[in-house]
């Protein structure tokens, strides 16, 4: 039994944040904002896939491109597993296609980070409303 409503509230925010990270738009979906969730899911996943298609999965490089990898990780924890696969170095990535792939996948991750923060903030506002009511 939580001591105050804030204890529950913090857990609620963490769950929403995790949901939004695991599946882009998942946080908004849990907050009953279905349309917003679908728009976010489709856009972030499509941008990420276009990046992978343009540059190959070699653009997810946890060894030689760590700052880009951190941004890519914001897409979903699934990127971690893709990073493990591409860390073997058997997937070629070079030239303009590599640059574009890296930019697309990283921007998709940063967009999802924006959505994670937005979902947490929305959940926080809803929690405040619930506490006042």
């Amino acid at each position, binding site marked *: 039994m939580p001591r105050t409503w804030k204890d529950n509230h913090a857990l609620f925010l963490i769950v929403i944040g995790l949901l939004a990270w695991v599946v882009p738009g998942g946080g908004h979906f849990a907050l009953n904002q279905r*349309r*917003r969730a679908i*728009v*976010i899911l489709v*856009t*972030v996943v*499509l*941008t990420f896939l*276009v990046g*992978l*298609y*343009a*540059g*190959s*999965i*070699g653009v997810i490089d946890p060894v030689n491109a760590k700052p880009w990898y951190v941004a890519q990780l914001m897409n979903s924890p699934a990127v971690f597993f893709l990073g493990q696969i591409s860390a073997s170095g058997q*997937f*070629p*990535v*070079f*030239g*303009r*296609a*590599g640059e*574009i*792939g890296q*930019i*697309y996948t990283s*921007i*998709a991750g940063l*967009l999802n980070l*924006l*959505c994670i923060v*937005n979902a947490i903030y929305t959940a926080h506002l809803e929690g405040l409303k619930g506490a006042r009511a």
Partner: protein
Amino acid sequence: MTALTCTVLASFTTPMRIDTNAASMLWLIPLVVAIAVVYKATKVHQIRARAFAKETALLIGSIMVFVTVAALILYGVAWLVTEQLPAMAGGSVF
């Protein structure tokens, strides 16, 4: 079915051929669209198809105009430094 799956998966393991030329700048457009759509999705109070499309289109237009102006200014500066400055200095300035 298996062949199709393999073809789709294989296309993600080799990079596309994209030349380094002016046309490759067009890759900016889908990225701007994605940024505008997600940003507006987090900003609007309620998502209604027509209003959302209008606001997103406006943001896409603003970004494209700003990027074009920035590109023109940078191109002008590069042209001055590489073409005009050496001519005024009577040779290479570097």
